[in-house]
C-alpha cells in the first residue's frame, strides 16, 4: 500500500466517522415484560432499519423489574403485563404514562383421556376448579356445559405457572372478576398463593405437565397454544355465549372495553361485555415517563409510539398477538402529546 492510498483510506475513514458522528446515534434502553418480547424486538428491529441512527435496546426482565427500573430512572421506558396499581402510582416519584401496545389472551388447556372434544367452560367451573371446590371432571358445573361429552369421574389435577408472569396476572384477574370467593381468598397478581395444584415453569413447563398428567387442566398464553397446536377449551363470556379464543375474538374484547377506556389506559378487559368478545384477555403496556428532560429522547419515544400504533400493528398478527382496536389507537395518538 503506497502513501497515497493510505492517505485516501485515512480520509475516507475520517469522513465515515464524521458522518456517523453527525448522525448522532441515539440509544434508548427499555426493560420489562417477557410476554410481548417477540413483538417488541421485531418492532425495535424494524424501527432501527427505518431510522438507522436510533437504537432501542430492550431487556425482558419481567414486569416487576420493568416498573422498578423505570421508577429508579435506570431505563428510558418500561413495559408491563399488568398496569401499575394505584399504590404504585401514588408512590412513584415521576408520573408514568401507560401505552397499550398489543393484546394477549389465556386459554384453558387440558388432558382428559378419552375426551377428544373441545370442552366448554363456564366462569363458575373455572373458578371452582382452580379454587379446589370442584374436584371431579364429571361435576355438574362442567358436565352441564358439555352435553354429550362423556366426562370421567376422575380427580382433576390443576396446573398453574410457578414463575411470576403476566399470563398468571390475566388468569387471576379474570377469576377475581367472575368469582367473589377467588377475589377475597386469592386475588390477582403475577404470582398468587394457589389453593391447589402443581406449578410448571413457563408456558412450556405447564404444557409439559398437562401433556404428561392424565385428568389435568391448566392455562397457557393463546400464542403458545396456537404455535404448538394445543387443543384448548371455549369459555363462556358475560353475554352467555361460549367463545373460542382467537385473534379476532380478543380484539373484539378490547373494542368493547375501549368504549369505557379511562384516560390513563390502566384498564382490565377481562370479562368484558359483547357477544363475540373472548373474556380472558388483556393489553400489555409500554411505560413512558410523562416528563423527559432530553428533547432528543422525547422526540424519539414519541416518534416510535406513533409508528408503533400506525405501521407497527401490522407485525402483531403474524406473531399471534391481537392488534389494538381502532378506537384505542386513536385515543393513544392523542395521549402521546402528554409526553413533555
Amino acid at each position, binding site marked *: 500500500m503506497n502513501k497515497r492510498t493510505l492517505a485516501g483510506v485515512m480520509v475516507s475513514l475520517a469522513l465515515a466517522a464524521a458522518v456517523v458522528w453527525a448522525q448522532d446515534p441515539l440509544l434508548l434502553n427499555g426493560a420489562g415484560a417477557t410476554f410481548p418480547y417477540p413483538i417488541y424486538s421485531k418492532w425495535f428491529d424494524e424501527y432501527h432499519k427505518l431510522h438507522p441512527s436510533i437504537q432501542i435496546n430492550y431487556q425482558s426482565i419481567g414486569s416487576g423489574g420493568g416498573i422498578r427500573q423505570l421508577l429508579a430512572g435506570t431505563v428510558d421506558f418500561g413495559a408491563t403485563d399488568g398496569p401499575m396499581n394505584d399504590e404504585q402510582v401514588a408512590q412513584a416519584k415521576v408520573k408514568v404514562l401507560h401505552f397499550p401496545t398489543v393484546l394477549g389472551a389465556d386459554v384453558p388447556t387440558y388432558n382428559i383421556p378419552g375426551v377428544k372434544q373441545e370442552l366448554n367452560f363456564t366462569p363458575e367451573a373455572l373458578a371452582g376448579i382452580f379454587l379446589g371446590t370442584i374436584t371431579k371432571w364429571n361435576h355438574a358445573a362442567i358436565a352441564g356445559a358439555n352435553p354429550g361429552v362423556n366426562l370421567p369421574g376422575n380427580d382433576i389435577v390443576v396446573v398453574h405457572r410457578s414463575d*411470576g408472569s403476566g399470563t398468571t396476572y390475566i388468569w387471576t384477574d379474570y377469576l377475581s372478576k367472575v368469582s367473589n370467593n377467588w377475589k377475597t381468598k386469592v386475588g390477582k397478581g403475577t404470582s398468587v398463593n394457589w389453593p391447589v395444584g402443581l406449578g410448571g415453569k413457563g408456558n412450556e413447563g405447564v404444557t409439559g405437565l398437562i401433556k*404428561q398428567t392424565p385428568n389435568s387442566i391448566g392455562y397457557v398464553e393463546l400464542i403458545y397454544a396456537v404455535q404448538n397446536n394445543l387443543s384448548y377449551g371455549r369459555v363462556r363470556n358475560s353475554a352467555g355465549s361460549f367463545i373460542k379464543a382467537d385473534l379476532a375474538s380478543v380484539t373484539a374484547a378490547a373494542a368493547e372495553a375501549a368504549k369505557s377506556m379511562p384516560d390513563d389506559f390502566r384498564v382490565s378487559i377481562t370479562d368484558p361485555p359483547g357477544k363475540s368478545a373472548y373474556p380472558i384477555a388483556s393489553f400489555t403496556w409500554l411505560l413512558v415517563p410523562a416528563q423527559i428532560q432530553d428533547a432528543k429522547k422525547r422526540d424519539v419515544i414519541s416518534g416510535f409510539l406513533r409508528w408503533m400504533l400506525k405501521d407497527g400493528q401490522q407485525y402483531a398478527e403474524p406473531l399471534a398477538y391481537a392488534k389494538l382496536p381502532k378506537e384505542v389507537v386513536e385515543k393513544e395518538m392523542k395521549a402521546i402529546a402528554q409526553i413533555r
Partner: protein
Amino acid sequence: MATAPIAVERPGPGWGPRALLRRFRSGDEIAHLVTLLIASSVILITSLLVYELWVNSALSRHKFGWAFFFTRVWDPIFEHFGALPFIYGTLVTSILGLLIAVPLGLGAAIFLAELAPPRVSDALTFVVELLAAVPSVIYGLLAIFTLVPLLREHVEPFLRATLGFLPFFRGPAYGVGFLAGGLVLAVMIVPFIISVSREVLLAVPADQREAALALGATRWEATWKAVVPFARAGILGSIFLALARALGETMAVTMVIGNNPQISASLFAPGYSIAAVIANEFTEATGDLYLAALIELALVLFVLTFILNGLARLLILLTTQRGTAHE
C-alpha cells in the same frame, strides 16, 4: 521464574531505592501480596454478599421477625410471607438425594479405586467426570420426560402398594414432587461423590492395604476396614461438597418438584425449594415487601449452607481424631 534469585545478599545499606528494587526483584514479596489480595477477595465477596442480603431484606425482617421461619403461608397478594415450606422442601430433597447418592457413589468409588482393573477404572472415571459437567437443565428435562412418567405410572403406585403403611408413601401419584426432586439431585451429585472419593481412596498409602492383607484380611476386609476408614475425611468432604450442590440446585429441582409451597410427610406430594422459588418469582416481584421477602429467603439459604458446612467441618474433625486414636 525458576532462576529468579530469592534473596541476594550484598553488603551495603538496607534502605534506598536500590535495596527496595532488590527486594521486589526477589519475587517472593510480590507473590505474597498478590495471593493475599486474591485470598482476601474471597472474604470480601462473601461479606459483601451477606451485607447486601441483610440490608435489602430489612423490610421483611422487620415485618415478620423470627416468625418468618415458622410461617407456612406464602401469599404475594396479601403480602404474607413465611419460609418454612421452602426450608422443608430444600432439606427434604437434599437429604433424600444424599441418602440415595452416598451408598451408590461410595460403592462406585470403592470399585473404581480398589477392585476394577486400571484401564476400566480410567475409562469409567472419564464418563463419571463427563456426567458432572452436564448442565442441570438437561437433567431437569430428562427427569420431566423419563423419570416423572416412570414415577407416576410404576414406581409410586408400587411404593404405595408395598410401603403404603409408612406416611412417606401415601397420597395421589403426580410424578412430580419431593421424590422426583430428590432422585434428580441424587443423579446429579453422584458423579461428585464418585470422582472425589475415588481420588481420596487412590491416595491411601499402599502400606495400609498391604498391612491388612498381611494380617490375613480378605481383599474386601482390607478395603472396608483399612482403606476406607483411612480416607474417611476425604470421603466426608466429597459428600458435603455434594450436599452443597444439592442445596443450591435450582433449575433441575424447580422442573420436577411441583412448585407448591406445602409441607407434607408424603414424598409423592409436590413441594418447593428456596432456590426454586427465588428463581421463579424474583423477576416479577413487584412489591417492595415481596422483594425483601425473596431476598430474606436467599439469606436463609446462605445461613443454611453455612450451618451445614460448619457441621461438616465439625464432623470431619471429630471422626479424624477418633480415627487416629483407634490406630
